[in-house]
């Protein structure tokens, strides 16, 4: 059983849901990313989504765009991120999802990437701009290396698409709470709950909700009907604000504690 499946099973036993923080690798630098992952795991994060910076993040709002720019200014490469996961694995077994746009993966070489990802201890890959229609080749490669591919479903996805994605997906399904780009919002969209129940009709996989979840109340709300909540821009915004402070890692740890309580 994969680390992700084990994690959701373990959480189910104790009647808890998954908190899934997202951070961009290399923001503000790789050493701190490493510390952040370990700290977040200690403070109640259940799975980590680790973003690969890309020059043209068309699905992201300003907060994650800026994080990406900061990481790229540091010259962060995919190979550095893989090595980083290898180092984290010596101290933490928290499941890690590599979160990326397709081109950096494609240029690395998909077969090579899958092999290396498995070696260093990545559990799953989510590709923002790889539609199920175009995913067959990469999906087969990931399967061969026993890696999960995380797919997204949105309020605009038809039942037909949901059925198709349910057949391809493993690990968990990422339910996008609303149309739009990544970013924080005051109030969760009314579409989230019906979205989760529509997806539930097609799959027994865990369903995690993301996009716009930025405080403890929203995490709680989502976890009434879903199996997990992804928090991205809120954490990345906090990293942006505190990135020059020595207590950055501590602060993010406290934020994750608060979100998971």
């Amino acid at each position, binding site marked *: 059983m994969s680390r992700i499946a084990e994690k959701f099973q373990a959480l189910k036993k104790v009647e808890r849901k998954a908190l899934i923080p997202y951070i961009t690798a290399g923001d503000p630098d790789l050493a701190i990313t490493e510390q952040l992952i370990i700290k977040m795991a200690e403070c109640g994060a259940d799975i980590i989504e680790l973003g690969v910076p890309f020059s043209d993040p*068309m699905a992201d709002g300003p907060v994650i765009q800026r994080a990406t720019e900061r990481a790229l200014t540091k010259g962060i490469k995919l190979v550095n991120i893989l090595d980083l996961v290898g180092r984290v694995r010596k101290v933490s077994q928290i499941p890690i999802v590599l979160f990326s746009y397709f*081109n950096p993966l494609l*240029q690395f070489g998909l077969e090579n990437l899958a092999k290396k990802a498995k070696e260093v201890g990545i559990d799953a890959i989510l590709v923002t701009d790889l539609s199920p229609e175009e995913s067959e080749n990469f999906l087969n490669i990931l399967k061969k290396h026993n890696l999960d591919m995380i797919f997204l479903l949105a309020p605009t996805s038809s039942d037909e698409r949901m059925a198709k994605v349910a057949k391809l997906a493993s690990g968990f399904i990422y339910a996008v709470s609303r149309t739009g780009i990544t970013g924080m919002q005051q109030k969760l969209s009314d579409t989230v709950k019906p979205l989760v129940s529509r997806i539930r009709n097609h799959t027994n996989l865990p369903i995690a909700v993301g996009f716009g979840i930025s405080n403890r109340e929203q995490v709680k709300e989502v976890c009434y009907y879903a199996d997990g909540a992804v928090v991205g821009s809120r954490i990345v915004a906090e990293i942006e604000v505190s990135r020059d402070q020595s207590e950055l890692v501590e602060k993010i740890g406290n934020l994750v504690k608060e979100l998971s309580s």
Partner: protein
Amino acid sequence: MENLKEPQESLDTVDDTISWPDSRGHFGDYGGCYVPEILMYPLEELIAAYKEARQDQGFINELKSLLKNYVGRPTPLFFASRLTEYVGGAKIYLKREDLNHTGAHKINNALGQILLAQRMGKKRIIAETGAGQHGVATATVCALMNTECRIYMGTEDMRRQALNVFRMKLLGAEVVGVDSGSRTLKDAINEALRDWVTNINTTYYLLGSALGPHPYPQMVRDFQAIIGQEARSQILELEGVLPNLLIACVGGGSNAIGLFYEFLKDSNVEIVGVEAGGRGQTLGEHAARFHSAGGGRPGVLQGTFSYILQDSDGQIASTHSVSAGLDYPAIGPEHAYLHDTERVSYVSASDNEALEAFQLLAKLEGILPALESSHAVAYGLKAAAKLSKDKVVIVNLSGRGDKDVHTVADVLGVSL
């Protein structure tokens, strides 16, 4: 030129003679739909609406009527006799897309898509623009159709195309400057996509080149194919033979595929696309996507799989061209396919060559070409010189150069 083909045929013959793209928008390995899940819904809606529209006689008739009475088609195929004499080789014909209403080929596609948006009941139009010609064309058709219009434009492009920015505003469009990345066309497309993904129910994304996810590369090509259809019948009437060589500049590639498409099946017609060679061979100094030593190789950007200028880690490179309309790191997927199958050759012309061609055409023929089109003219001069006088070359003059007068003055050190 009454032997212009009916648009009925123009939208439908396409499928009879050419077997690409497939139903999911693939040109060989290229093209496709590489987008976040949220965008699959509006794209599928668009695919269905376009499929229906291209077979609807009412839609075709309305487009045909507007192309004739509003745009002024057909555009002339002009024999450039002084240029021909100057070069001393093949006869050079210019397909005068610069004489279209709004001054470039962009309006052919903008009109087709605004009619489609209306059929789909979309009340709000967004578009990206590089040189500003597509922005102007979109703002124009939105004024004509009384539709809300927002144009995204990189702030670097706004600076070099200030005249077009003001034209768009006069036409009632809102122009939104994009300050991220290289502040050019690529970044304007990112921002337009972000808008679209946020407002999919109300908004139609009127993409301006043969780029992006399916169905755009096919749809834009179909709306631009009229250029080649006209040129083919015009040259047969004027010369009685097919041309030996076709030349067009290639940014995203819509004017080029528009000219080329009708001739692809004519295997004895040589076809050349001209990319922006910029000011050097190294990555960042040019926009020649097929220049492999300069960083061009297949990858995925903005919804499609094609040749892209990128670094070894798959980060998209910055590009340079004196012409804003060619200053883009990816090329339309059909061009990638035509490149790999060797049906079309791709070359590049430098900033300086384009600037020289610009001035030469002005002095010899009294035509100020767009700096984009000047790249095609520059290669046309070289190619025609190597051909004998009985040969025929058609150069697509995709737009007029009034918008570029400030840029040219700057480069020449003239203060206006």
